[in-house]
């Protein structure tokens, strides 16, 4: 009999055999604590996982009441008495096989087994150490909430529920990962989400066959199409308020235990340019900052490529003053401009990667070394021209304006640079066609990624090209269903 098959076996009624089976299945792991005692005239054992339960809560809410039970005839009577007369924990359930028993044990439940009982009573008294609710690190908001998701799924569920007190908000818990047994929660507004979307997400989640689920990256590929897509048709957010706004628009979300991000399905390209602050400021300023983000994204992707293409292939496009300036700057550079651009961009990517991976105190040192020493020295020594460095810096800055699309911006910027350097504006145009088609072919669950631009949906433009006033926005009664094709 394999280990998996043994885990599916029903719980043994003999207490000693039961404990021996638990020890065997846990491999004698030191953090599985088994405490034998007698209560109500029945031999029992309380099992918990060290560090996963709150010792104080367990002692006050479970140990105290359970050990004080008057004599009962059998284990079944004892369990009936506990179930009917004692409210030991709000989160209580039963385990009838070892698979469930271990899942509950490893989720911070205290389990009570008794001699002669064919099940275990489980009481949720989780008390494991976890990071508190903090400000989201990657999705800053000036006028919005400063609460971000945390690693504990129950906390995240409560953060959503606190903002959406509607009974229409449904949270379906499921377990994914053969080994990790990770809690995954599907959230949606019952009255808003398209039924077809929900059914297809459920099917996609049911198809997941993984050993472990350790980040959103484990689940997202199962929620997206298999074909090559540059952009992801599922989004992530670490803000409960943003997630609530998505749920109201009829989207669904997936929370994963241990991950401070929620997956949002479906995601559209235009959403990468929206921020929560857009809805806090006056519409005219929101429209301005939104268009600033569109321009920044295009600059982030195309600026180095266009600069290189113009300097290498189309100098006639520059006016004479600018041409003389550039020619003067580039004539001293030892490398061809395409190679120079690649070196500068790759150097920036290395600095960025080092800044992310290094401990925070060392990150500051990296900034000083890269910005002040390498950058200044490269320009002064003439290895890199000042205009090129300026263009690269502007492009990088543009990329930082839309952090959601950072991976795509990084790769596309290099690809467009190569196309522009080799084939000029013609090369950029060809690559743009291919990229545009790839973006337009991105579609999951029948929601085109490029909506509401193409296919054009006028009702969606009120929150894409512009940002309507709140009264007009609410009058639209918009849900994502409007984009379904």
């Amino acid at each position, binding site marked *: 009999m394999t280990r998996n098959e043994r885990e599916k076996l029903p719980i043994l009624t003999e207490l000693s055999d039961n404990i021996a089976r638990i020890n065997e299945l846990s491999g004698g792991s030191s953090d599985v604590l088994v405490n034998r005692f007698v209560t109500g005239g029945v031999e029992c054992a309380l099992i918990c996982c060290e560090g996963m339960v709150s010792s104080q809560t367990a002692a006050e809410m479970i140990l105290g009441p359970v050990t004080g039970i008057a004599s009962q005839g059998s284990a079944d009577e004892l369990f009936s008495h506990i179930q009917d007369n004692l409210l030991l924990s709000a989160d209580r359930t039963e385990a009838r096989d070892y698979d469930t028993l271990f899942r509950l044990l490893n989720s911070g439940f205290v389990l009570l087994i008794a001699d002669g009982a064919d099940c275990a009573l489980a009481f949720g008294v989780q008390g494991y150490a976890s990071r508190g609710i903090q400000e989201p690190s990657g999705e800053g908001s000036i006028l919005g909430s400063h609460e971000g998701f945390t690693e504990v799924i129950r906390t995240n569920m409560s953060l959503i529920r606190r903002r959406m007190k509607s009974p229409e908000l449904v949270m379906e818990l499921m377990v994914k990962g053969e080994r990790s047994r990770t809690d995954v929660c599907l959230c949606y507004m019952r009255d808003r989400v398209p039924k077809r979307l929900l059914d297809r997400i459920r099917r996609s989640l049911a198809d997941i066959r993984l050993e472990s689920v350790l980040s959103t990256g484990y689940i997202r590929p199962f929620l997206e199409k298999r074909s090559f897509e540059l952009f992801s048709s599922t989004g992530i957010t670490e803000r409960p308020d943003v997630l609530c706004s998505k749920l109201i628009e009829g989207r669904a979300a997936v929370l994963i235990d241990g991950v401070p991000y929620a997956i949002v399905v479906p995601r559209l390209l235009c959403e990468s340019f929206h921020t929560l602050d857009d809805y806090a400021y006056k519409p005219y300023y929101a429209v301005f900052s939104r268009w600033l983000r569109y321009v920044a994204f295009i600059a982030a992707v195309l600026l180095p490529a266009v600069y290189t293409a*113009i300097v290498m*292939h*189309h100098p*006639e*496009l*520059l*006016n*004479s*003053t600018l041409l003389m300036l550039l020619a003067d700057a580039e004539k001293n550079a030892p490398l061809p401009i395409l190679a120079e651009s690649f070196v500068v961009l790759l150097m920036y990517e290395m600095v960025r990667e080092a800044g992310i991976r290094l401990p925070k105190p060392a990150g500051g040192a990296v900034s000083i070394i890269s910005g002040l020493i390498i950058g200044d020295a490269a320009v002064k020594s003439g290895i890199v021209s000042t205009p090129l460095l300026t263009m690269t810096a502007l492009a990088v800055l543009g990329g930082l304006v839309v952090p959601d699309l950072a991976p795509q911006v990084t790769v596309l910027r290099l690809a467009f640079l190569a196309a522009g350097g*080799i*084939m*000029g*504006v*013609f*090369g*950029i*145009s*060809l*690559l*743009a*066609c*291919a990229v*545009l*088609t*790839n*973006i*337009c*072919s991105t*579609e999951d669950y029948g929601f*085109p990624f*490029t909506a509401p*631009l*193409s*296919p*054009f949906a006028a009702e969606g433009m009120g929150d894409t090209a512009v940002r309507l006033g709140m009264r007009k926005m609410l009058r639209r009664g918009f849900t994502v269903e409007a984009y379904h*094709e």
Partner: protein
Amino acid sequence: MNKISRHQLAALMLIGDAFALFCLRGRICVMTAVGFAAGSLIQFLLALPLARLCDRGHTLADSGRAVRLILLVNMLLWGGTLFAMLREASTVIYIPYENSGVSGRLAVAGLIAAVCVYISSSGIKALARSAVIAAGLGAVCVAIVVVSALIQSDMSNILRPTDSTLLHELIRGFGASGGLGSFVVLLSFSADSKTNTAALYFTCKAVLSFVMLFTAVIVTGGIMDVISFPVTSAAQLSQPFPVQRTDSLFLTVFSVFAVYTTAVQASAAEYLAALTVPRLRRFRCTLALAIMAALGAVMRAPSSGTAVYAAAAAAMLLIVPAEALVKGGLGKREKA
């Protein structure tokens, strides 16, 4: 079947028409603009029987193999013509490596073909969606060119004497409409009423042709004898800023439109090949593009007023309804 909206279909087709106008050779005058616009309206009348037929549920799968084969051959030939047009237009539009011998030309043609293969393989929906965005960007660029052209235009060019006749310009207009074969194929993909789709497309085509040609006439009317590509030259001469050239805008539009025009031909050819030669299961699009590129290498772009091209374009609109009419007539006779 993947369905597209009439706006998407119109965008797909108009890109091809704009590209054909960019590559239009020979003298043009106001009569040319009128002739092309009037030609578009005549094309609409010719397309009405086809649209009505499609509205009644007729698809190309219902047509005979011979008809599909004729359409396919037309599509491949027009695809080849597009490659030839691109090659010849590159004498006035700078495309890196295009003028550096055979290898350069092959590299450019290969690159375009590769991008077209990718675009076509993404499916008609993705192609249509991206074509709308490309057409939108193109419209903005063309608007900039038109506005800047108006600043530098000479209205007296309208009155320049010309020996051109309306009939001659009508034939030219038909000759530059080789993409009508793909319209016949794509019409069945339209989710809306086919008659409305045809009306939208041909109306837009008439307006587009008239605006572009009229602008070209008022800009380049005085130098018509020394230029080969009037529309392209007009775009190059139309600079909105006194110290800044904006040719790259036009080059971008030209390249994007070239790619989409070819991709539409390839997609339509692929669809027809699937219907006509079902045994050919793989690489249909690649094969179609390879044939087009090879034809483009040996063909020449149509010269002014080519009656053969005009007749072929008109025939493409009529061939399907004509066949249905003949089949219907034969069916009735058999029943009788």
